[in-house]
């Protein structure tokens, strides 16, 4: 029978509420236990049933995502998804949010976001090979934005650079809805042998449980609960709930774990992420249908006088829980001693399905595992469709040359070198295409395989039409991968939304899931991992619905010879048709102040499939030198992004829609004009049109005439001037 310790506080309704449990949820706790919880048990329910750990508002919707496919080895539910890439190799990947901590303490919040996603991947037995980050900040003129950008970028670099994992891509956007709630979504991919994948399980009763890595401190206590609440004026007071990262410890942990994994002594392994020791041990036991007995007084600590409650809820970083095959315990101590890491036996696997903790011999927690996992609350929260945004009105004429320069200087479009040159994007010597092109491309040493990575999301399109907007983002990721020759093989998602108790937010979420599901099914991309971040709101206003997507692609063959910018004497073609759609576009926001106006551009899956196939063929056969998907700012911006060295003259209708429309299913390619027939043949069945030729010092398209130097200045100088200003 679990006992309270003399020092434990008395549990009152107010304390229950402070733990984020509703009166109804607390009644389920009482009924499930048949008694009142002890103080540590209350903390355990609080974190395990938090939105962050239990997915209680999102679970019923996420089930609609397609998660299987011929390449899928492990789908959602484990630490990361695993997809087969042939020859006994797999790619293991996931993206996860660290939004709230990164707003409160940008450097450590972002750094530990990277640390957490790295552990999710190497826990599976994979050696991490690539990182990406999807970032959202508030308006440039908001007083907090600049320092948040500095802190978050330094934190990401500080952790990833020290670990020696290249940060090869990502995206950064700015909008007023993120003023008080920035987003930091970190992605990691690793490579693992198909027969060497490790899972978070515990095996048979009697197996010993080991704690390895950094000692436990008081940092991050109740991080998961914080991540499940909205921001208010007290956000600054939550700083102690942010974890502190030590990438050096994690590098040692990575090497030690991979070394141990090569020895055939591990039953299961799980990293201590959100809700730390509690969720890692409960999840491991739950997957095996087993129980666990943890001696909390054996847990290595780095602070004095820590209580069972604190030990269970700490989110100290760089820690792992291992279950070892009987008789191999000495090996664990040997490996961790080599790497100067702490290692302690802290528990035993039991057969009774109960998760128990003792403190110097006294049982302080005893909860049947299914109560924490299966019986966790699940809500089908009310959903109400938001009224459609007003249509795009008749627009007054603008100077289109000035408009193009304005769009190139927009922080969503302009050069982010200032960010990515703070990230080591080459360590590991596999980066064939780093940041700055449509997608990153990495070789897999010892094979002819290349993995492509892209992160993308457009909250304006998703706000305009959560279903179609999200489908469009999936399609855009597929196009980005095709621009470096790769087939899409899997998707991971970070669903960043507002308060799920608001029916319009819940509607956005549900619609977004359906749009993603439909597009993934149509385009043959399984969703293999992901995470949900709700309550992204400040005061009463939610962020733009932001399903952060990261997609992985694969192809085999000689590395493509691609450039980001044109050289002189090339022909340029537009594949996929003319621009027609200005709804939710950057053009109407930047030039006409029309935010939240118009519908998202529709998605034609037949067109997307055909375009993807054509682009892959063009790139793989070396027919094109530059391939660029059309996104923010439409055709004019895409042309300008390729014209930063060499200009050209292009024949496009003199209209805002043709130049700046954000219709999906389109790309531009540059090629040797002598091979135009071959290029067009590869695009059979698609609209394809010769736009013009590259060369000269000016970009001329419709009535736009701008010197290349002015394009370069608008695109290249604006962001660094602001951020260092």
């Amino acid at each position, binding site marked *: 029978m679990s006992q309270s310790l003399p020092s434990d506080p008395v549990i009152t309704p107010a304390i229950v509420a402070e733990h984020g449990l509703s009166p109804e949820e607390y009644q389920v706790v009482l009924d499930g236990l048949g008694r009142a919880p002890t103080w540590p048990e209350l903390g355990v329910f609080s974190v395990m049933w938090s939105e962050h750990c239990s997915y209680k508002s999102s679970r019923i919707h996420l089930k609609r995502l397609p998660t299987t496919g011929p390449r899928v080895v492990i789908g959602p539910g484990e630490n990361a998804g695993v997809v087969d890439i042939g020859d006994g190799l797999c790619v293991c990947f996931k993206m996860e949010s660290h939004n709230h901590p990164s707003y409160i303490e940008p450097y450590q919040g972002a750094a530990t976001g990277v640390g957490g996603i790295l552990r999710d991947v190497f826990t599976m037995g994979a050696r991490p090979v690539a990182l990406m980050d999807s970032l959202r900040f508030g308006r440039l003129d908001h007083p907090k934005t600049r320092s948040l950008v500095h802190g978050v970028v330094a934190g990401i*670099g500080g952790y990833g*650079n020290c*670990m020696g994992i290249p940060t090869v891509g990502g995206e950064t956007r700015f909008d007023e809805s993120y003023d008080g709630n920035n987003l930091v979504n970190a992605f990691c991919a690793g490579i693992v042998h198909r027969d060497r994948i490790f899972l978070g399980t515990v095996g048979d009763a009697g197996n010993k449980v080991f704690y390895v890595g950094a000692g436990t401190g008081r940092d991050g206590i109740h991080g998961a609960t914080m991540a499940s609440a909205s921001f208010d004026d007290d956000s600054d007071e939550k700083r102690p709930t942010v974890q502190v990262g*030590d*990438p*050096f410890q994690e590098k*040692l942990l990575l090497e030690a774990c991979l070394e141990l994994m090569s020895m055939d002594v591990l039953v299961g392994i799980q990293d201590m992420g959100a809700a730390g020791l509690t969720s890692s041990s409960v999840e491991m036991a739950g997957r095996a249908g087993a129980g666990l007995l943890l001696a909390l007084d054996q847990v290595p600590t780095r602070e004095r006088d820590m209580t069972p409650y604190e030990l269970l809820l700490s989110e100290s970083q760089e820690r792992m829980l291992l279950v070892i095959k009987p008789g191999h315990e000495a090996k664990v101590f040997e490996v961790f001693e080599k790497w100067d890491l702490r290692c302690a036996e802290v528990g035993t696997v039991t057969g009774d399905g109960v998760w128990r903790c003792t403190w110097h011999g006294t049982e302080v927690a005893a909860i049947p595992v299914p109560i924490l996992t299966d019986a966790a609350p699940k809500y089908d929260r009310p959903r109400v469709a938001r009224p459609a945004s007003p249509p795009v009105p008749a627009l007054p004429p603008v100077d289109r040359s000035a408009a193009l320069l304005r769009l190139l200087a927009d922080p969503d479009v302009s050069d982010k070198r200032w960010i990515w040159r703070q990230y080591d*994007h*080459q360590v590991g*010597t596999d980066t064939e295409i780093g940041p700055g092109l449509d997608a990153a491309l990495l070789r897999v040493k010892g094979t002819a395989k290349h993995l492509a990575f892209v992160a993308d999301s457009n909250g304006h399109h998703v706000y305009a039409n959560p279903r179609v907007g999200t489908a469009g983002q999936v399609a855009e990721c597929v196009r980005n991968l095709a621009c470096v020759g790769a087939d899409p093989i899997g998707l991971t998602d970070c669903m960043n939304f507002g308060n799920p108790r608001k029916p319009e937010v819940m509607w956005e979420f549900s619609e977004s899931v359906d749009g993603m599901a439909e597009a993934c099914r149509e385009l043959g991309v399984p969703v293999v991992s992901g995470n949900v971040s709700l309550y992204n709101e400040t005061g009463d206003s939610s962020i733009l619905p932001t399903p952060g997507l990261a997609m992985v692609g694969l192809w085999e063959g000689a590395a493509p010879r691609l450039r980001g910018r044109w050289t002189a004497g090339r022909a340029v073609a537009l594949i996929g048709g003319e621009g027609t759609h200005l709804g939710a576009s950057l053009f109407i926001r930047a030039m006409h102040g029309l935010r939240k106006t118009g519908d998202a551009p529709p998605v034609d899956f037949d067109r997307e499939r055909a375009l993807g196939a054509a682009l892959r063929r063009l790139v793989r056969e070396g027919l094109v030198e530059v391939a660029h998907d059309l996104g923010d700012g439409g055709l004019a911006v895409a042309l300008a992004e390729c014209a930063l060295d060499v200009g050209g003259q292009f024949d496009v209708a003199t209209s805002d829609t043709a130049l700046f429309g954000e219709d999906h299913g389109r790309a531009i390619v540059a090629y040797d004009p002598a091979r135009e027939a071959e290029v067009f043949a590869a695009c059979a069945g698609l609209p394809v049109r010769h736009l013009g030729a590259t060369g000269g010092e000016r970009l001329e398209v419709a009535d736009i005439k701008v010197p290349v130097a002015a394009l370069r200045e608008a695109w290249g100088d604006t962001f660094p001037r602001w951020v260092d200003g």
Partner: protein
Amino acid sequence: MNRRVAVVTFPGSNCDADARHAVALHGMEAVPVWHKDTSLGNVDAVILPGGFSYGDYLRCGAIARFSPVMQDVVRFAEAGGPVLGICNGFQVLCEAGLVPGVLLRNSKLKFLCQDVTLHMEGRDTPFTRNGGVDIRIPIAHMEGHWYADDDTLARVEGEGQVVFRYVGGAPNGATRDIAGVCNARGNVVGLMPHPERYVEASVGGIDGKVVFERLAEVLS
């Protein structure tokens, strides 16, 4: 016979595998050496690779230089053996007093990962040769601002110990745009840029090959 090149792994080294890969690509045998080893074994050259030894805590390279294997590295260097320190390895060499100068934080206090153009100059070493074409290879560091007091600087410049210099200005603020130096005898070389990263055409280019080709030639 294959020439053996030791690549030392300190806790926190993360370019050790890249250095071994580059060594092997140039027909030499890369020998992994653990920092707790007390002997380098029978090797013909030593590379201290890049990374964040001991997390760069205290000061970059300041703890690594006390690793057990460093005694044998110092002995090997003093006996005239070729030793190359790249990035964090250069910082370790400076801390160990095997090459002159120290490395300060970049002048703009940001980590920088970008290509730089280098001029190879000074005396010939087992890794460099005076003259030849400039090379374009990347830097990736937070503390690459090479600095020395005036006397040391005068001696280093006067004795031809500057072996790599940034062309067009040092992005990290390094004194006199110095990117790499050697010791007085010329057998120990340290540089901040990463030649091991650019040794294949599909991954950044092949400008880093000259360093490994030179070593292979000297050892043959």
